[in-house]
Every structure is written in structure tokens, then in C-alpha cells.
């Protein structure tokens, strides 16, 4: 249907001139996949139906978005298409012919490429070496990296990707690494690309650039599957959208005929109230203050350098930044999990630099850690034991060194109720809870203490919409109660929705702190990329 209205395809000839042809050949020289159809795919895991007779299709020249919460079955479906899992039932057709895909190798042969959310690149190798990795050399035992490089340049030219085949991966930005992944897939002859949450790690500008590339690819006849949970991106880039929930296909619609609210309702199963704006709260005195704080990072690259921030009572300071720009280091230095190498941190009037996490608990500093399974809970401890992790030594949970199980149990019941933690019992081990409920457990523990300051690091990462909105509402509640909150997030929407002021972190430095009014997406995005808009203008 859509392919009928496709314009002519262009083709890059030997003189690097685009030739418009009405053929089924893609600019990369690959044969087009006119349509790919998944029919009645079912995949069972012990106890769970991950995919329940799912139909899905994508045509040449369209972006078909696959939308769903965690556990809805979208990654399972894509792993089946890419040959990582094998379906229990159902068939896959490419150009109306049934195909069996038993391994990623088969998928690649069929013209399917996948851009994984976490890039599959070797950091210490060059672009060309990464592209050639796993492929046979055209010269037998000798390498053919020169030919690979030539081809990479050809492919990069088509979409103006500007990639140096001899650059090492570690030298490239996240956005550039993603382009390497795209080239890798094209090099292997992909005509259909699966993009698994490709925007999660990008700045807004990089997202725009990616979308531009995607639009061009669609025009040229590629078929793209776009996996995301960011509704506005789905609406912006996709032609059609399919929503999965609990392993079932809920709907497939032309994107132009749906709204954000529809999509959210299909995803969650009921109406969702988006927290879009919030009333001004009474901002009080400075509660949390960082003065020229520095620290080392784990990988020996830049740590925090000279970070100075102030957060007032009743204020949420958003920390925006692309993943891996020392957000973790920032959270850990404040919460005593990491040593500072310089500077001072104050909570209220008292200096807290270098205090141990236990002492910070006493001073009512709460921390919602980014790695909740690593730092937030003990997997093999019960819900109740995790609830008292920070205050197990204090009355009423223990007295003269003995735990008081009754009081612990009463406290846990209360928090389970109050924070809607879904758990079979309080003796259930934390590892048996879903991500959202683990986060609610952490939230219950950290927030129920009425903290003076909260460091919330990626508090909604990996959570479904319902749980995310719940976490956000709780943070706003704490803000109302007068806590100073630092919200570290890679999700710009979240930052914009919740923050009173926004600080942008880049390579361990605070680029700027903007008020809500000053902060536009463009401005924040440039800062996230390490560019000072003013400087750029003067240069």
C-alpha cells in the first residue's frame, strides 16, 4: 500500500552520481525487501507467554514503530526476527516467501540488520576493523581492510554519515558509534533495519540527525522497524505503529491517525495522566550545596571536576546529560559511595564531605541509586529486610543488637500498602519482584524517612509508564514537603517535566545551570554535546 506511493529510488553508480531508477535495488546495491511479514508468532517461556500469536509487518519505504512497555514482548519478537530466539509457532515471510531464521547469520543473509541498544562494537578497534569483524576476507587469509574502508566510505557517502574508517571506536561520540552500527548493517547487506531504542543514548540534536538519516533511508526504499517507548518520537518518525501489551498485539494504526494519549492507553491498558507541568513550590533556603567538588572515575578518564551546585528546599534540580558523563560519579560522591578528591559538600549548614553512607542516613540524605539491583537492594534478601536496609540498627527495628521482627514486619506492611509495592508477601526475595516494584521498594525506603535531600539517579530507567509516573509523582510530593531533590536523568522529557532548574553535565563538568524559562531543548541539547551556545555564536 505504502510502497505503491513510493518515489523512485536512487542508486549510486560508479562515478558516485545518483541515478534514479525504478528498480528494486537500494542505494547500497542491495535488493529491496518489499515487505516482511510475521504471522502468528508465539513464544513461550516457562510460566509466561512472551508472544501470543503476534502479526506484524513492515514494508519497503516505511518506518513501522513497535511500541510497548518492558515485558510487552517487543524485544522477544525482534529477537525472533533476528534469529536469536526460535518461535514456538508462527511464520516469517519475506517478499511473500516463507523464510526460516535460525541464527543472526540467517537474518543477515535474508537482508535483516539490527542496531542494538547497546552497541556491539569493540572499543579498541577501528571502524573498518569493527565492520570487517566476523566476515570472511576477500583475500582469504590476508586482510582486506583497504577494500572494507573503501566500501565504508561509499556507504557513508550515501547518507552523508561522515565516518573515518580508520578512527578508533573509543574516539567516537555515541552518535557516531551508532552510525558505525548502521554502516555495519548496510555493509552486511541489510535492506530491513531493526533499530532497538536507538534514541535512548542520544542528545536531542543527535536524535534529529538520526531521524534525518532514517527519513532518507525510507525514501530510498529501506524498511525500518523502530522500537521505542518515547511516544513523541514514535509520532514524529513512524508511518505506522503497532502496540504490544502482555505479549499480545493490541493495535496497528497509521501514526497519523493516532494520538499520544491513544498510544499510552493501548500500552498501559488504561488512561494515563501525564505529569506535564507542576505548580510552583515554595523554594526555601539552600539545603544541598556542592563547592568545587572533584572526584576520580572508574575508567581512568575524566571524573568530576570543579562541580558547584546549589539545591534549595522544595526544589528539583535536574541534571541533564548524555549517558556516561559522570552522572554516576556525581551521585556517588554526594552520597558517600565514592571519595572526593577536592571540594566541599554541605547539607544544610553542615559539611558532609567524606562522610560514610551510614552517617549520611543519619543526616536524612536519601539516595535512589541508578543501579538498583546492584546498589539499591539485596537480591537474596526479603522485601522486609530490604525495607530496613538503611535503618536496621535503629529503633524500633532493632534494640540492643537484636532485630525486632514484629516492628519490622509492621513497618514493611505499612510501606507496601502506602507505596503500592506488588509482592506476594514481605518474605518474598527482592529478586523475584519486577523492576517497577523494586523501584517502589527503594522509593518507599528512601522517601518514607522524610529526607531533607534526595539524590535520584535515573529513577525511572527501565520502568513502565505507570511505575514511572508513580515515581515522578512521589518526587514531586517530596518537593512539596520541602526536600531538596537532585534528579539525574538521561531522559530529557523527564528533566523538563519535573525540574525547577536544569544543570547540564558534560565530561564531569557542569556546563551551565538554566532556569526553566531559559531552558529550551536546543540550548540544553547543545550543552549536553559540550557546546556553549554563546561561545559558538561569537566564534
Amino acid at each position, binding site marked *: 500500500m505504502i510502497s505503491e506511493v513510493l518515489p523512485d529510488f536512487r542508486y549510486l553508480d560508479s562515478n558516485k552520481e545518483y541515478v534514479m531508477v525504478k528498480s528494486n535495488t537500494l542505494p547500497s546495491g542491495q535488493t529491496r525487501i518489499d515487505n516482511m511479514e510475521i504471522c502468528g508468532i508465539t513464544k513461550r517461556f516457562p510460566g509466561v507467554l512472551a508472544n501470543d500469536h503476534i502479526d506484524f509487518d513492515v514494508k519497503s519505504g516505511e518506518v513501522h514503530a513497535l511500541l510497548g512497555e518492558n515485558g510487552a514482548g517487543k524485544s522477544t519478537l525482534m529477537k525472533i526476527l533476528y534469529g536469536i530466539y526460535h518461535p514456538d509457532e508462527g511464520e516469517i515471510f519475506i517478499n511473500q516467501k516463507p523464510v526460516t531464521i535460525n541464527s543472526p547469520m540467517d537474518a543477515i543473509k535474508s537482508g535483516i540488520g539490527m542496531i542494538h541498544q547497546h552497541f556491539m562494537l569493540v572499543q579498541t578497534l577501528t571502524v573498518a576493523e569493527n565492520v570487517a569483524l566476523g566476515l570472511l576476507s576477500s583475500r582469504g587469509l590476508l586482510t582486506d581492510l583497504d577494500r572494507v574502508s573503501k566500501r565504508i566510505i561509499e556507504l557513508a557517502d550515501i547518507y552523508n554519515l561522515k565516518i573515518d574508517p580508520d578512527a578508533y571506536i573509543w574516539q567516537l561520540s555515541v552518535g557516531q558509534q551508532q552510525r558505525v552500527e548502521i554502516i555495519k548493517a548496510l555493509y552486511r547487506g541489510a535492506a530491513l533495519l531493526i533499530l532497538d531504542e536507538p534514541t535512548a543514548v542520544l542528545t536531542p540534536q543527535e536524535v534529529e540527525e538520526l531521524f534525518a538519516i532514517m527519513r532518507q533511508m525510507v525514501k530510498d526504499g529501506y524498511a525500518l522497524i523502530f522500537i521505542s517507548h518515547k511516544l513523541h518520537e514514535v509520532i514524529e518518525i513512524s508511518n505506522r505503529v503497532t502496540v504490544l501489551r502482555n505479549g499480545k498485539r493490541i493495535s496497528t494504526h497509521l501514526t497519523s491517525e493516532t494520538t499520544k494519549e491513544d498510544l499510552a492507553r493501548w500500552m498501559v491498558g488504561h488512561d494515563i495522566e501525564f505529569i506535564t507541568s507542576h505548580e510552583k513550590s515554595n523554594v526555601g533556603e539552600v539545603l544541598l550545596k556542592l563547592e568545587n567538588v572533584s572526584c576520580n572515575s572508574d575508567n581512568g578518564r575524566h571524573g568530576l571536576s570543579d562541580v558547584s551546585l546549589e539545591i534549595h528546599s522544595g526544589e528539583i534540580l535536574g541534571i541533564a546529560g548524555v549517558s556516561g558523563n559522570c552522572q554516576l560519579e556525581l551521585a556517588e560522591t554526594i552520597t558517600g*559511595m565514592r571519595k572526593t578528591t577536592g571540594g566541599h559538600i554541605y547539607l544544610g549548614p553542615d559539611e558532609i564531605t567524606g562522610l560514610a553512607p551510614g552517617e549520611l542516613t543519619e543526616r536524612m540524605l536519601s539516595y535512589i541509586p541508578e543501579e538498583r539491583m546492584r546498589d539499591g537492594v539485596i537480591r*537474596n534478601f526479603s522485601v522486609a529486610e530490604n525495607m530496613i536496609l538503611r535503618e536496621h540498627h535503629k529503633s524500633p527495628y532493632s534494640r540492643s543488637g537484636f*532485630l525486632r521482627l514484629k516492628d519490622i514486619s509492621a513497618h514493611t506492611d505499612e510501606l507496601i500498602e502506602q507505596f503500592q509495592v506488588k509482592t506476594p508477601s514481605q518474605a518474598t526475595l527482592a529478586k523475584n519482584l519486577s523492576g517497577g516494584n523494586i523501584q517502589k521498594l527503594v522509593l518507599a525506603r528512601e522517601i518514607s524517612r522524610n529526607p531533607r535531600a534526595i539524590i535520584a539517579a535515573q529513577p525511572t530507567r527501565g520502568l513502565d509508564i505507570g511505575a514511572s509516573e508513580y515515581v515522578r509523582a512521589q518526587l514531586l510530593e517530596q518537593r512539596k514537603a520541602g526536600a531538596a531533590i537532585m534528579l539525574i536523568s538521561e531522559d530529557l522529557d523527564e528533566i523538563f517535566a519535573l525540574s525547577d532548574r536544569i544543570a547540564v553535565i558534560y565530561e564531569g563538568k557542569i556546563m551551565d545551570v538554566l532556569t526553566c524559562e531559559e531552558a529550551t531543548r536546543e540550548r540544553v541539547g547543545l550543552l549536553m554535546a559540550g557546546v556553549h551556545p554563546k561561545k559558538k555564536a561569537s566564534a
Partner: protein
Amino acid sequence: MKSRLSSLLDAFLPVLATLAALLVGAIMLLLLKANPLVAYKALWDGAFGSTNAVAETLVKATPFLLVGLGICISFRANVMNVGGEGQMIIGAIFATWVGLNVKGMPGWVLITLAMLAGVLGGGIWGGIPGILKAYFNVNEILSTIMMNAIAVQLMNYLLRGPMIDPAQAKAASQIPQTARLEEIYRLPRLVPTRLHFGALIAVILAILVYVLLWRTTLGFRIRAVGENPDAAKYGGIKVQRYVVIALLLGGAFAGLAGATQVFGVNYRIITDGSSTGFTGNAGFNGIVAALFGQLHPLLTIPASIFFGGLLVGANTMQRMVQVPSALITALNGLVVIFVVSSEIWRKKRQRRREVVALQINEPPETQAKSKETGA
């Protein structure tokens, strides 16, 4: 339903593993032209066939249990304490020194003092690797094994020199052993067998260790550090301190095992130069007993009795069916191998369940739901 079945299987895994080991042992017995049924009957009779047999089994089990309790604590903190032997030896030396040199006290006061000295000695011997691990990142498996070697040589030196039995010092034989403890300084016997008061102490301590691990903040912290040091640190627990405490407590229990062995069984330290001179390999068998008991102090009681019975019964079996003593060692080894590998298997099954759970992201919740509706 399926998960309940598999967890039931997990619970009986050690028993099944033992049966499997005995089955392999039976094949070996057949190859030696012995009747396995007769042999195993002899084994059973030797271990549990009479009051005396039971008493001997319990005497053997006591140091296993005491060491095993220490192992429960150390391993729960995820520190692999394999220094039970050395800690037992040092504990025995400390206790014996008190028993031989402190005079003019009522028997029970001195015995208490000697036991505490044993605890102290073992605690020091476990605490040193603890400090090395916590503050200098020295692998505790290596350091505790080294400490075993040091303890053995220290004992050999003391038994040939400063602590040698004055009678032996005068005699030409120069057998390396200490003087005998006076009768009032020996642990009282419970029944007219060799079963001594130490067995009772061990059982009481098992209950106390259970309380310690699951009812006190100290136990909470030890377990938290063992399960997830990052989260423990975040919970305000000083991780390094509890690593030291866990090894120190592990050593203390082994030290007590050494002390009770001297005060309840041998009444002196004797050695043939090897570390097993008087420990009866309890420093290692205690680890096996604790693992057999799934690192649960109360389950370690039957586990220790099981291994004690196996060793005592094996002696009878050897006499009855005339098989080489090496077979007994082999049978022991088989049980250990089967039990330990069944433990690995159990963990693998558990991990596989978790992996499956991870792949589908939210299954635990759905499983919980289906359980609720099923009930």
C-alpha cells in the same frame, strides 16, 4: 506447582547426592569382591548400631559442627575461610596452655577460661586473614591456607620445645606431645561413653548462631555484606569491618573446636607431624558439613552427625569386610564430591530460573499472580 516440585528436589538434593555416592561406592566394593549390602550394614552398625557407636559418632561430629558453625558465618559473608585446621590448632594451643599453666582454680572456671582462650586463639588466627582481606585485598583462600601451614609448624615447634610433656622431655622417645590435663580440668562426660560436654555446647551454639544470623543486626550486616557489598555499603554498613568480623568469628568457632577436642577427647595435644595429628581433618570436614547443611547452622547439626557417622562407621566396615582403608577415604571423597557438585547443580538451576525470569522481564509478578489464583 512446577516450581514447588523443583524446590522440593533442591531440598533433597544432598540426600540424593549421598545415595548416588554410596551407589558408586557399591560398585567399587563389588570390584573388590565385597558385598556392598554387608559392607553398608557394617557401616550403619558402626555408626549408629549401639550406644557406644552413637556416642563415638557424636564425638566425631562435635568438631565438625563447631567448625561448620564458623563456616556458616564466614561463608554467609562471602569469605571463603579454609583455615579451619590452623584455627583449630591455635585454639587448642591457647586452651592447653591455660589448662597446663593456670593453677588453683575450680575445674569449671578453668575449663571456661581455657575454652575462651581457644576462642581467642582461633579468632586471632582467623582475624589476621580477615584484616588482610578487608584492608589489603589479600585473597582469603590463600591466606587462610598459609595460616594453616604456619599453625602446623608452630605446633610442631611448641610440642618439641616449650610445651613438650616434661616426661617425654626426659625420656629418649621425645614424642611430641604436651602433658596430660589434670582430671578436674577435663570436659565432663554426658553418658558413660566418650561423649563429652563439648557436644552439648556445640548444639547450643548452633542455635545461638541461628539467632545471630537471622535475629541480630550483626547477622543482618554479615549476610548483607556477603550477598551484596555494594548495597550493604549503601545501607550504611562498614563492609570491611564485617569481613574481618566474619573471618574472626569463623576462626573463633574453629578455635573452640580445637579446645574441646583437647579438653574432651585427647586431654593433650598430640601430633604425628601432620596437621591431622589431632584435628581429624575437622577443619576441612567442617566446611563440607556446613555446605551439606546449606550454610544453615541448624541443618549443620545433622550434616555433622552424618559425616561423623560416615567416618566412624567406615572403620567398622573396614574391619568387617576387609576392604583397604583407602576405600573409606575414597567413599568419603565421593560423598563430598557428589554433595558439592549437587550444590553447584542447584545453583545452576536457580540461575537458569532467574535467567528465564530476566528474559521475560516481568514474569515473577505474573507467576505470583498465578500462584494467588491457583491457591
